C-alpha cells in the first residue's frame, strides 16, 4: 500500500484521459449527490410529520424526552421527597463493569474451548466431545433462562461459597457461559481458515503440534476473527441488560425506578442513549477493521 506510484506517472494518465469524459463523470457525481439529498429530505420530512402529527406525540414527547426529566434520570434526584439514583452511574458501575469482566472471561474460555475442539488425535476424542457438547448446549438455551438457572439454582444448591455469590457475579457467570459458546465457534472458524500448509511448515521445522498452534495458527486465526469478535462484543454489551431479570439493580432497573417515582419514561431514553453511545463506535470500528482487512487481502492477491 505504501508502494503507490509517486507523482511521476500520474500526469501521464491524466494526459491520456480526454477532458469531456472528466466533465461527464463530474456531472454524474453531482446528479448522485442531488438525488441523495432529495431522498434524505423526503425521509426526514415523513419522520417529522409522523412524530408531530401522531395523536399522542405531545404526550410521548413529555414522557420520553422532557429535558427536565432527562437530566433528572441521568444524574439522579435528591429532593426531600424523592431520592432516585443516577442512570448514568448505574450504567458505568454495573453494566459496563459487568461487560468488561464478562468479555475478558468469554475471550479466554472461548479460546480454550475452540483449541480443545481443534486438537486432533484419538486421545483427545472425549475432550472434543465435551467441548462440542458444551458449545451446542449453551448456544441452544436462551440467555435469560441461563440467568435464572444460575442465579436461582446455584444459591439453592448449597455449594458453599458458590451459593453465596452476588447477583452481579451470577450475571457474569451466565453471560460468560452463553457467550463463550458463541465466541468459541468464531475462534474455530478462524483456526480452520488458516491453511494446513502453515501447520505443515511449522511441523516440518520441528515444532510440536502445540507449538505450531500457539505460534503459527492461533495468531493468524485471531487476527482474522477480530471483526466478528467485535460483533459479538456488541451483543454481549446489550445483553448485560438481561441481568435486570435476576433482580440486579443496573441501568434498566434504575431507569424503571425513576419511572415509577416520577411517572416519566425519560430514564429509559437515557439508558437507550447510553447503550447506543457505546455500541455505535464499536460497530464503526468493526466496519473499519473489516474494510482494512479486505483491502489487505486484495493487496496480497487474496491468497491469505
Amino acid at each position, binding site marked *: 500500500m505504501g508502494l503507490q506510484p509517486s507523482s511521476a506517472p500520474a500526469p501521464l494518465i491524466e494526459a491520456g484521459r480526454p477532458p469531456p469524459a472528466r466533465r461527464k463523470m463530474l456531472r454524474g457525481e453531482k446528479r448522485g449527490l442531488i438525488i441523495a439529498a432529495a431522498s434524505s429530505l423526503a425521509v426526514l420530512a415523513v419522520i417529522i410529520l409522523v412524530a408531530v402529527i401522531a395523536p399522542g406525540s405531545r404526550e410521548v414527547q413529555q414522557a420520553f424526552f422532557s429535558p427536565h426529566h432527562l437530566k433528572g434520570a441521568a444524574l439522579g434526584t435528591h429532593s426531600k421527597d424523592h431520592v432516585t439514583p443516577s442512570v448514568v452511574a448505574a450504567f458505568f458501575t454495573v453494566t459496563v463493569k459487568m461487560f468488561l469482566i464478562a468479555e475478558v472471561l468469554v475471550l479466554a474460555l472461548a479460546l480454550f474451548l475452540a483449541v480443545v475442539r481443534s486438537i486432533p488425535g484419538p486421545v483427545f476424542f472425549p475432550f472434543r466431545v465435551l467441548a462440542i457438547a458444551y458449545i451446542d448446549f449453551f448456544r441452544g438455551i436462551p440467555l435469560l433462562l441461563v440467568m435464572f438457572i444460575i442465579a436461582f439454582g446455584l444459591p439453592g444448591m448449597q455449594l458453599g461459597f458458590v451459593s453465596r455469590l452476588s447477583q452481579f457475579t451470577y450475571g457474569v457467570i451466565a453471560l460468560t457461559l452463553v457467550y463463550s459458546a458463541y465466541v468459541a465457534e468464531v475462534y474455530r472458524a478462524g483456526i480452520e481458515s488458516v491453511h494446513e500448509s502453515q501447520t*505443515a511448515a*511449522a511441523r*516440518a521445522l*520441528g515444532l510440536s503440534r502445540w*507449538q505450531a498452534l500457539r505460534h503459527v495458527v492461533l495468531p493468524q486465526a485471531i487476527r482474522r476473527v477480530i471483526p466478528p469478535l467485535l460483533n459479538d462484543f456488541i451483543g454481549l454489551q446489550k445483553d448485560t441488560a438481561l441481568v435486570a431479570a435476576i433482580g440486579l439493580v443496573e441501568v434498566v432497573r434504575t431507569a424503571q425506578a425513576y419511572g415509577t417515582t416520577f411517572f416519566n419514561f425519560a430514564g429509559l431514553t437515557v439508558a437507550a442513549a447510553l447503550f447506543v453511545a457505546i455500541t455505535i463506535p464499536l460497530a464503526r470500528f468493526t466496519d473499519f477493521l473489516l474494510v482494512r482487512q479486505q483491502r489487505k487481502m486484495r*493487496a496480497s492477491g487474496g491468497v*491469505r
Partner: protein
Amino acid sequence: MRAPIDERPQTRNAEAVRLEGVHKSFDDLHVLKGIDLSVADHEVICLIGASGSGKSTMLRCVNLLETIDAGRIFVEGEEITAEGVDVNRIRQRIGIVFQAFNLFPHMTVMRNITLAPIKVRGLSRHDAETEAIELLRRFGLEDKRDEYPDRLSGGQQQRAAIVRALAMNPDIMLLDEVTSALDPELVAEVLNVIRGLAEIGMTMLIATHEMGFARDIADRVCFLEAGVILEQGPPEQIFTDPQSARTRQFLQRIIEAGRL
C-alpha cells in the same frame, strides 16, 4: 553464495536416506507404489516426472509430513518410520522447502527464521538472531530482516524460506518444486541459491520441473511415473539416452514445450 558455508568433506560413503518399498495412498488414490531409493551423504538427487507422479508425496513422506502405509524409511541409519520415534527430533535433521513458500505471514523474515531455532533448538533470541543474520547476509536478504513476507518478491520469499529451513542446521534438504510458483525472471535467483547449497555438499532431494537445472546440478536423476521410480541414473544418461520408453516420451514432451 560462492563461498562455502563450511568445509564439509565431499566423500560419499555414508547413507543419508534410504526408502524401502514405500507405499502411500490417499483414500482410493495409490500415490506411491513401492519406492526404493538410497541417497548417499552429499548426494544431490533430482526427482522428475509428470505432476501427480508422486514426487511431492515422496518428499513429504521422508519428512514424516505423511505417514506411509507400507515400507520403511531410514535417515542416517535410523528407521524413522518405526513405532515411537520422536518425530520432532527427526524433522530437525531434515529441512523442507515448499512450492508455495509457506512463510508465516504474521511474522517478519527474522521471526520466521528464528522461531524454530528458539523454540526447538532452545537457542536464546540473541544467538538465534546472530545465526539468522549470518544466513541472511549469505543469501542477500539482510536488508529484508524486518519485512513481512507479503512485502517480498516471490524469489525473495523462497530464499527466505530456504534460509528458514537452513537455520535448523539440517543434514538433508528436501526441495519440493521450489521454483514452480515463481515468475520466470525470479527462478534463476532461487536456483543459484540451491547450486550454492550443492557446492557446499548439502544432501538434497529435489523435485523439479526445471530439466536444465536438474541436468546441471544432479548427481543422479530419478524419473517417477505412476508412483514408482521407473528409471534412474546420472543426468547425462537420463537426458541423452533414456532406457525406458515412458522416460523418452516424458522428455520429448518437455523438449516440445521448450523447457529443455
